[in-house]
């Protein structure tokens, strides 16, 4: 790691960065005194207003993966990347708000695994809690690793120092103020990202000659890659067949795999985001949380995907903003056709360095740093809650005092941070282990939404049905992956390790279909086993199942403030965006 850094910062940039951290730590310190019970620490005492939980709901997911990854996909696939928002996230966010939040918030469960315990049984909860806890540690480690590597490359910062310093800062404010501190900092980070990236898009569009200039340049770029002229600037062109769009997926796989299974699975069952809504101060606030998050989410493609597209437009055949990917020998990698492979992950950071003068550069890089750190903090707060309530309290020490669980929460925060640092170093040392783990987690997550949907909307679903449905869904995902391969890949981590029955046109298509198979397997097995086992009496399922729960009556709320009206407006705006970028 002795590369020459891409740029260096000046005093004003460091001053901007330092000022941000003063406020971050200040928030933790100010909240320390009001964090007295375990409910304060893990659930923010269920006392936060909806605009705060809403922006945190969005921001908890706005880690490195979002900002860097969406820029990379923007450079790779163009505006079609917005499908992750307009087909993926938004419908799922509306669904969780209207149909699932009443059970999460109304059941008074303290975590998503705890809902599974109330609805089904201990074994289903434990399966979910353990896989979720491992996943949070692993994601926060990946986030740290990516940050250390990126800032080493851009600014020449030492990897060890950036990992340790960021871990210490996250530890300090989560330890002091618990979930509230993490949520407050997530909201602060949301505004940093918005205000750091809006001028980037503005300057970027200015230098390519506006949207018209961008379209013209990307039409040229599409031609050199043999794609349809509008491939980068139209979201739905060529979606009837996998061969004619840059994603390599046909519309059915996209809508079902991404739009339905994967996105609903993430936004409706992932405790990391749901925890934010559960911290809201009332049922109506909890239901509004994902809807409030959906409004900026809908517009985020313009902030995070456009920089990647602009970077691509400014990169010609002779090179430009996006650098070449380097092989182990330090030479640029070439693809099968002998063309240089671009390192898309650097599209957004490089554009930032290219367009921002000192001063603004400090703001932009601070926004990037903020997104890495709040990604870590989100994972750490979800981890300490699941560890303390779903693993420690339910299996290790049942009837301890509240003070003891508060203490355990703080201890788990320290432990979670140490484990994340360890995961960051493992990621650096053994790239393959991380890829394998990522794959395993994809299998674990794929069937989750089926279990929750059946549990909430079909009262006949039993604990055994849920548990074995989940387990077989995970196996189904693994089998599907093991018997298929994306075009042009060799058997191994990419699939095909059990044999080869089918070849997909792209990795994305394979991923979406793995999710569809896992979901269907889980549904079928859960239904069959539920029908063969003893259901729980209706009286035990009140508040946990749709048909046995009183519907929220919004009669005394003015028409325009009703969650259902809000949701309809969000969906209409999303349809409109899809039509504009058809």
């Amino acid at each position: 790691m002795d590369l020459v850094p891409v740029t260096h910062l000046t005093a004003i940039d460091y001053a901007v960065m330092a000022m941000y951290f003063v406020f971050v730590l200040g928030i933790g310190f100010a909240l320390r005194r009001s964090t007295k019970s375990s409910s304060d620490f893990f659930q923010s005492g269920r006392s936060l207003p909806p605009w705060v939980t809403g922006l945190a709901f969005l921001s908890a997911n706005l880690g490195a993966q979002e900002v860097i990854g969406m820029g990379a996909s923007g450079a790779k696939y163009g505006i079609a990347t917005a499908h992750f928002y307009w087909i993926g996230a938004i419908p799922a966010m509306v669904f969780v708000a209207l149909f699932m939040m009443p059970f999460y918030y109304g059941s008074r469960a303290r975590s998503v695994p705890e809902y599974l315990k109330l609805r089904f049984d201990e074994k289903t909860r434990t399966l979910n809690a353990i896989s979720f806890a491992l996943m949070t540690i692993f994601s926060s480690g990946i986030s740290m690793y990516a940050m250390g590597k990126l800032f080493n490359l851009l600014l020449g910062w030492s990897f060890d120092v950036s990992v340790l310093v960021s871990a210490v800062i996250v530890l300090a404010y989560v330890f002091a103020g618990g979930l509230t501190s993490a949520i407050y900092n997530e909201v602060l980070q949301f505004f940093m990202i918005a205000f750091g990236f809006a001028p980037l898009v503005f300057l970027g569009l200015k230098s390519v000659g506006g949207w018209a200039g961008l379209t013209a340049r990307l039409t040229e770029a599409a031609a050199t890659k043999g794609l349809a002229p509008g491939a980068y600037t139209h979201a739905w062109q060529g979606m009837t067949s996998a061969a004619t769009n840059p994603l390599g997926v046909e519309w059915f796989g996209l809508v079902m795999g991404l739009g339905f299974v994967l996105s609903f699975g993430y936004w409706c069952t992932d405790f990391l985001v749901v925890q934010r809504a559960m911290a809201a101060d009332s049922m109506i606030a909890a239901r509004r949380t994902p809807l409030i998050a959906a409004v900026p989410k809908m517009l985020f493609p313009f902030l995070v995907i456009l920089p990647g597209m602009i970077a691509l437009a400014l990169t010609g055949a002779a090179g430009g903003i996006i650098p070449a990917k380097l092989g182990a020998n330090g030479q640029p990698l070439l693809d099968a056709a002998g063309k240089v492979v671009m390192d898309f992950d650097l599209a957004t950071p490089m554009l930032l360095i290219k367009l921002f003068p000192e001063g603004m550069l400090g703001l932009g890089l601070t926004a990037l740093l903020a997104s890495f750190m709040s990604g870590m903090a989100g994972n750490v707060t979800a981890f300490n809650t699941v560890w303390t309530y779903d693993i420690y309290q339910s299996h290790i020490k049942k009837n301890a005092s509240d003070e003891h669980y508060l203490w355990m929460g703080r201890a788990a925060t320290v432990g979670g941070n140490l484990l994340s640092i360890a995961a960051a170093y493992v990621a650096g040392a053994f790239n393959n282990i991380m890829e394998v783990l990522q794959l395993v987690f994809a299998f674990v997550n794929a069937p989750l939404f089926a279990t929750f949907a059946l549990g909430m909307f079909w009262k006949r679903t039993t604990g055994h049905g849920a548990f074995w449905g989940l387990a077989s869904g995970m196996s189904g995902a693994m089998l599907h992956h093991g018997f298929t391969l994306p075009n042009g890949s060799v058997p191994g981590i990419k699939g095909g390790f059990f044999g080869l029955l089918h070849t997909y046109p792209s990795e994305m298509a394979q991923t979406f279909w793995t999710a569809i198979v896992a979901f269907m397997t889980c549904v079928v097995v859960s239904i069959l086993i539920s029908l063969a086992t003893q259901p729980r009496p209706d009286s035990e399922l009140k508040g946990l199942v749709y048909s046995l729960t009183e519907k929220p009556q919004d009669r005394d709320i003015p028409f325009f403030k009703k969650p259902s009206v809000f949701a309809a407006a969000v969906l209409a705006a999303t349809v409109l965006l899809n039509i504009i970028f058809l």
Partner: protein
Amino acid sequence: MSAEGSLDLRLPIGGLFTVLGVMLAGYGLATGSNTEMYAKSAGININLIWGVVMIVTGAIFLMLAKRGAAAK
């Protein structure tokens, strides 16, 4: 934790944005004549412009926080 006892989030957001805005706008004023430095940003003094935008945003948050406190 009661809502009154804790920190109003609009205060630190407003505070941070105002301080950062003043820093950037001040730096933009001081470097305004340096055309070479702003060649990167398409000839626009983005520090000054964005600094002012951030000051205004920060002030709005501080005002909302003050009104919220007065309403209690």
